[in-house]
């Protein structure tokens, strides 16, 4: 009781404290920068004298305000806007320009033209530094498999070849002498447990334990050699029903996915760490505005040391911009992946199968608004 009271008091106190000072602390309202400018009051005559525009004639006072073209064309609401437009009067005498104020040239020579050769075919290509590396003159990314390189195990044939839908087993029918599949599941489970206890930690993960076993279908009953396990007959009908229900539920799950990778999955913190590591090198400062509107998804394979395999980096999709913009956005993404992975990303080795293949979506929307 007291603990609840203390907890309640603590939380309320925190709320009140936050309400009082949190607002000002959390406020990210930035005051605009002010630039202090000295202001000098001047008379209209002084102001007119600042600009060498012909003086307005007083006769046009009753006309609607017209632009002074010198200023109207350059800025709105300059102080000159309030003046009447300049009249057709001779210009004020201008001081004869000094000799150096003459035009520089009688004829402006156009910039010399240059001849451009784009192909540079005559130049030899740079030799590859690493003789083992792939030829560098093939910049096109290699075609990496879109799916996991390890083929998914084929589903049990009895599942695929079931000729017709089997009736749902009823507990009351458990007494029937027909053989049932559930024995398969307990046997496998038992086998897994024994294996786990005797094998090193690397194989602790349930690799295929969720694979649905044979369903208690008629096909099993029609098997040429019905070999009911003797212990099945002694099973509790309720237990059988539960097993059947579990088997059915597992069977209904999407099955064609490959087996789950070995090792524990990455925690949220580990994924966040990876995300943080990549974003530190994702520099969009030199991208065009169109590339900044382009989201690219990049695929990369990582080695066990956490280093990206440069040759595996490829763009598997983009949206929001043209292909040219996507290529530039991909360049920036590729640089980010390589640069920050040069020492290897900090990822747990036991979960390697989970992060061996990486797909990173680089979405610059928030960067564009900065």
């Amino acid at each position, binding site marked *: 009781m007291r603990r609840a009271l203390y907890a309640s008091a603590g939380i309320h106190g925190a709320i009140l404290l936050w309400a009082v000072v949190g607002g000002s602390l959390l406020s990210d309202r930035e005051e605009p920068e002010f630039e202090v400018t000295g202001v000098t009051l001047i008379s209209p005559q002084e102001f007119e004298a600042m600009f060498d525009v012909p003086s307005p004639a007083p006769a046009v006072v009753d006309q609607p305000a017209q632009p002074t073209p010198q200023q109207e064309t350059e800025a709105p609401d300059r102080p000159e806007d309030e003046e009447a437009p300049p009249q057709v009067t001779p210009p004020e005498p201008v001081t004869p320009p000094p000799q150096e104020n003459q035009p520089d040239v009688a004829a402006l020579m156009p910039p010399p033209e240059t001849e451009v050769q784009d192909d*540079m075919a005559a130049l030899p290509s740079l030799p590859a530094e690493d003789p083992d590396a792939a030829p*560098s003159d093939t910049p096109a990314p290699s075609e990496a498999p879109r799916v996991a390189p390890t083929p998914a195990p084929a589903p049990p044939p009895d599942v695929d070849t079931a000729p017709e839908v089997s009736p749902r087993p009823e507990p009351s029918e458990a007494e029937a002498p027909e053989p049932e599949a559930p024995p398969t599941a307990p046997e496998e489970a038992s086998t897994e447990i024994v294996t786990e206890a005797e094998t090193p930690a690397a194989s602790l993960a349930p690799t295929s334990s969720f694979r649905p076993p044979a369903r208690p279908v008629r096909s099993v009953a029609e098997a040429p050699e019905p070999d009911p396990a003797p212990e099945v007959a002694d099973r509790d009908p309720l237990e059988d029903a539960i097993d059947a229900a579990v088997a059915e539920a597992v069977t209904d799950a999407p099955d064609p996915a490959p087996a789950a990778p070995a090792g524990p999955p990455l925690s949220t913190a580990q994924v966040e760490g990876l995300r943080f590591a990549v974003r530190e090198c994702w520099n969009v400062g030199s991208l065009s505005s169109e590339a900044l509107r382009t989201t690219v998804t990049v695929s990369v394979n990582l080695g066990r040391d956490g280093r990206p395999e440069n040759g595996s980096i490829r763009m598997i999709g983009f949206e929001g911009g043209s292909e040219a913009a996507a290529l530039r956005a991909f*360049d920036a993404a590729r640089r980010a992946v390589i640069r920050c992975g040069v020492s290897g990303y900090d990822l747990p080795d036991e979960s390697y199968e989970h992060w061996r293949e990486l797909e990173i979506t680089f979405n610059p929307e928030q960067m564009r608004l900065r």
Partner: protein
Amino acid sequence: MIPFKTIIHALLLTFGALFAPPAAAQDSPGPLRIEITEGVIEPLPFALPRFIAGSGSADDAAADITRVIAADLTGTGLFRELPRDAHISSVTSFDSPVQWQDWQAINAQALITGSVTMEGGQLVVRFRLFDVFSEEPLGSGMQFVGPPDSWRRMAHRVADNVYQRITGESGYFDSRVAFVTLEGPKNARLRRLSIMDYDGANLQNLTDSRSLVLAPRFSPDGDSILYTSYETGIPRVYIMDLASVRARPLEDDALTMTFSPRFSPDGRSVIFSAERGGNTDIYVLNLQTGERRRLTDAPSIETAPSFSPDGSQIVFESDRSGTQQLYIMPAGGGEARRISRNDGRYGTPVWSPRGDMIAFTNQQDGRFHIGVMRIDGSEERLLTSSFLDEGPTWAPNGRVIMFTRETAGADGAPAIYSVDISGRNLQRVSTPGMASDPAWSPLLR
């Protein structure tokens, strides 16, 4: 005040995150999938060893070209050159293999190698670009051949190619800027029309300082410019052929004030403002036929028109609503829709070469800003703020904007600045003295 429900929700989320069991991030087989939504925005570090000189006569050119390439790239704010004394490898031959580890060790993400030779009286510049961490070339090698005095252009073109291959958008280094140079005190300024490379090199004055000149605008082919001159005492639009540096009035009507001109994207017509009977409207002039057509017919002031890149629409400023705002109308005239919706007054709209943005001058609360918005008025961003910022002009690739910034006070002087459309990399453009009214040319041919 933070709502109580929000506090409770935040607490629940916090406790949930603290005490929830660690969830398996990858329960299903297959690749580990993650999404990155945040990165860094930093200049891309590149290494640029001095280009190899094929002969002693090319030695100076090799050094100069290398220097200009580095300046072009670092000037964008998108790239950062690694100092040469940090290089581990030295490139002794244009065809020598790249020591990837040496460049990776200094975190060079791009490597530019090149050579400069004199062949048959022509300067030959070759270069290659490499992605250091991918250990692959970025595009094929390229070479430029031209007269020796074109070394600066060739350097700009190398930089343009590097820029394009890394960023994905065309460069803007091989371009020029027309502008107005100013001399003298504030109450007696002398103005001349001038032209220079985008980086301030090769400055040449096109007019004398006897007449007040304003607002040059390049033709789409870059061969001529429009500008406004007070040569006759009133503002009139002139057109100058840059090859001959000869100018003529756009129209023969010497009694009509015309100003704020721009070429159409095909270069066959000019759109401008003209004042008649106390009213300012927008007109279009066919340069072949001399036909002049009025596009707006309102008692308000319509000015500063700018074509869309496809020539189908025109953005302009008007005070028809009581304050200066931006409007878009069909190129042939007709109903205009207002696109500026936020506070302040808007003017000098300029359509981006890409066609997706409009740059403008905004004034509010006594300060001027250069900003950009989508052509429907959305995503408006003010990029600069000062005592007086005005007159934006787009780089050929639509990535950078130049404009005039004038400082306050009796000693205030105008200068040309540039800024990336992200609002970063604000910097002053190199000019020998006071300068204003920049107009960025298209890429040179």
